[in-house]
């Protein structure tokens, strides 16, 4: 029996050393430990030319895995790019930036503030990054309707109520320097105003693809619902797409289609609205046309785009500035 205890002791000692590597559950230090910046934030690719497909990335190292956020803000444009992650280091793999934007407007050639901050920690690191040339969106297949940099094309027929405003503004544009300001109060009608963008007067005259699944309409809209008397979204925006199905340079509501998109302007600041042509709905108002065509979405036969700003006459004021109206192919313009 003496041997039993010797065996027990040996087995115990052997198996005591049978620990496993690694750990069970999330790391305690990551959850509760102090955050130390082991290696400070470095910007790789300052004075970047995004127009030349150059890129920027960042590096930093921390004492623990942490939720981090890099916020890049254009000092003059006030545009924003947010890069975030959860790791104990920032490197090229998790922080590469090609000049795209998280919050409009677009970046311009400007200095940007770079702020690295952490969830549940007060630490932050600040730096400056220069953009020598901003990113050019598009894959070469885009068709620009207007970005208003050359002013308002007089061939864009329009109507605005006498109490309402349509005006080209300079500064604080979504893209470039100019945009079309549209706002006002009309207490007798829903319509604040509309603008027609006939195809013949688009800035670029390339032909759109015939595949509606591949064509996207993009428009940048500035909303400011805080200007509403009730501090709520009061502006209704409608976009109508008129198809000239028989290619006779005339839209006939009795025999051709109109497609619509309608939404509330319930945000503040610039926002890009992008819609795939195949997701547009056929107009259902017989008097407005659109139900008598071939009911086939044909972006290559778009004759005219009309944008309408509407508001309830009771609650009055409405605002929806527009900029950078552009068709894109394959994906929304901001993804290119």
């Amino acid at each position, binding site marked *: *029996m003496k041997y*039993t*205890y010797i065996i*027990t002791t040996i*087995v*115990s000692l052997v*198996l*005591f050393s*049978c*620990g*496993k*590597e*690694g*750990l*069970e*559950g*999330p*790391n*305690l*230090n990551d*959850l*509760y*430990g102090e955050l130390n910046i082991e290696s400070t934030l470095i910007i790789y690719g300052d004075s970047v030319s995004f127009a030349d497909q150059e890129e920027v990335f960042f590096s930093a190292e921390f004492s623990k895995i942490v939720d981090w956020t890099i916020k890049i803000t254009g000092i003059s444009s006030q545009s924003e790019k947010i890069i975030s992650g959860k790791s104990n280091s920032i490197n090229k793999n998790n922080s590469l930036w090609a000049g795209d934007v998280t919050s409009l407007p677009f970046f311009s050639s400007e200095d940007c503030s770079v702020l690295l901050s952490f969830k549940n920690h007060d630490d932050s690191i600040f730096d400056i990054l220069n953009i020598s040339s901003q990113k050019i969106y598009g894959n070469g297949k885009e068709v620009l309707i207007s970005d208003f940099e050359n002013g308002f094309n007089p061939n864009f027929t329009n109507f605005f109520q006498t109490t309402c405003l349509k005006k080209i503004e300079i500064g604080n544009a979504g893209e470039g320097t100019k945009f079309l300001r549209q706002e006002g109060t009309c207490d007798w009608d829903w319509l604040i105003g509309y603008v027609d963008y006939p195809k013949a007067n688009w800035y670029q005259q390339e032909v759109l693809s015939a595949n509606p699944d591949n064509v996207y309409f993009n428009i940048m809209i500035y909303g400011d619902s805080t200007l509403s008397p009730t501090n709520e979204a009061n502006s209704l925006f409608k976009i109508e797409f008129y198809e000239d199905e028989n290619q006779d340079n005339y839209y006939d509501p009795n025999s051709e289609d109109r497609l619509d998109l309608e939404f509330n302007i319930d945000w503040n600041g610039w926002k890009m609205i992008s819609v795939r042509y195949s997701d547009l709905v056929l107009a259902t108002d017989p008097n407005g046309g659109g139900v008598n065509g071939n009911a086939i979405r044909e972006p290559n036969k778009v004759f005219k785009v009309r944008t309408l700003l509407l508001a309830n006459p009771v609650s009055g004021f409405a605002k929806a500035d527009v900029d950078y109206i552009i068709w894109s192919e394959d994906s929304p313009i901001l993804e290119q």
Partner: protein
Amino acid sequence: MKTKHTYLFFVFFLSSQLLFSQIDSRVWYDGNSRAMFYRDALAGDLKKSDTTSARSNGEGYTAIDLGIHFNPSKEIEIFSEIRIKNDFGYMWGSGAYVDLRRLSVRGILNDRVSFNLGDIYLKQTEFTLYNNDQELSKYESSVFQSYNDLINYENFYEENYWRTQGIQSNFSYTFYNAIKSLELDGFASRVRGNQWLGKPELLMLGGSSILRLENNIKLAGHYINSFEVQSTSNDSAVYKNPVFNIQASYYKKINNRTYSMKIEGGSSLRSWKKTNGSQQSIEKSQGGYFKFFSKARTKKSTIDLSFKYVDPNFRSAGAQTRRVIYESSPSSYPYFTNNTVLRPVSLMDITTDPNIYNQRLSTVLMNFNPQYGAVNPYGEATPNRAGVSGVYNYIGNFLTGEIKLNLLSEIIGQGTANKRSLLSLGTSVVVRLDKVLKTKNKLNFEISSYLENVSRDGNSIEEIDFHSRLLSAGLSYELFENLKLISGIKTFVSIGNEVGTERDEYDKIIGYSLFNFDSEESIQLIGLQYNFTDDIYFSLQTNTINFVDKMSLDKELKLTRIYFMFNMNL
């Protein structure tokens, strides 16, 4: 009205049964009875500072559990146990209940195969199916027996069996060659039934086979599988937990000493199959365990030595389900202080409150409070433990004692590469002072202690340094035959820090709770106990209960209690 009808039915039923029992011996009765009453009164500083809680509260009841046994033939017995309970403080039956507490059929087929249907009690090994004792219950004086009996009885805790519903059958066959006998046992039970818009049914199948060979060798195999039935619910996840166990044991007698050893091992698979539309995914974990046990026994003493290794991923619903539910609301003063804070489950509730206990197997590791048991919170099958244990027992003429030591370590660190080292040391001594002092009246003195130490190296977040100590003592003096004066004390101190785990619905650790303990608790008892037999007694006692959490000064509770219990188990 409904209650009245229930009574009428019961009176007719009982009277007819009584008449029947007088004319036919195939029906016979037994039963248990209990009358219990307690009243708690606030005391100490809380009595002044807490102006929202009642100055005192209490409750009591009388209950009779009437067992009716019916033998339609000599091989079959139908057993039902009906509880008639009457809460104190109500009239005309408004606080009275009649419940079916137990119903089962058992019998023997062909004098070979026994079966049991209905409410069944199941136990296998400490790694497959085992109802582990609640924390701090082993090292307490027998003067607290009346509380312990109450908790065990009300929660259907019979030794370490789990009570469930289903069918069980077993048979044994004796050979006359190298194989002495073969025993087979199988069961199927429904652990959880249908839930409206809830989880699927949980079933449990299992079996054991024991082969006794010549030369005192025994081989055994055990299998248990707890699983959910997907078709019984719209829930997208279905649980499965098969566990295996094989054992080999041997004993030999040499010069009035018996030596034995046992080796056992096995493995578990625990998975949740999740369906999301046409996609299926599986959350799966596999783990094994191993235990070596040896024992030497003489006429007056035994020594056990054992080693165990339980993988961090070993999961066994039958053996790892805990008794105490720490999320429970205690019966006495569930809310206290002027902020009406939910009172956490403490030593007082673990010792005295049957309502914080669990009666059903759990498919995930239940929460535990490391303050009251950090070394083996899920019993012998606690995952992520390896180490040695030793037990020494002595039974003398006027003194019996036990020392148990556990020296364990984690196999893998929780939240850190550093591993916990765990130590527990339990000692208990019972002295028959009447034999020492040679007095006529019985005089027993009991003292026991239980210590736990947990430590882990690391930085300030990872480091653990926790100590707890339970001291219990009891004295019983026979005033005259069968009437004892009893007094006892339990004190519990915990100090240090520990790290608790937070788990998701699939038992994965998703976070931690950082605990800092510095608390003192005590229960003092003095009273009288009259024993008609060991299982029939009444106890009248007064308790003083203290709970002080020094980490939070407003968490202080002092109660005085009057407690009466009449207990009759037949």
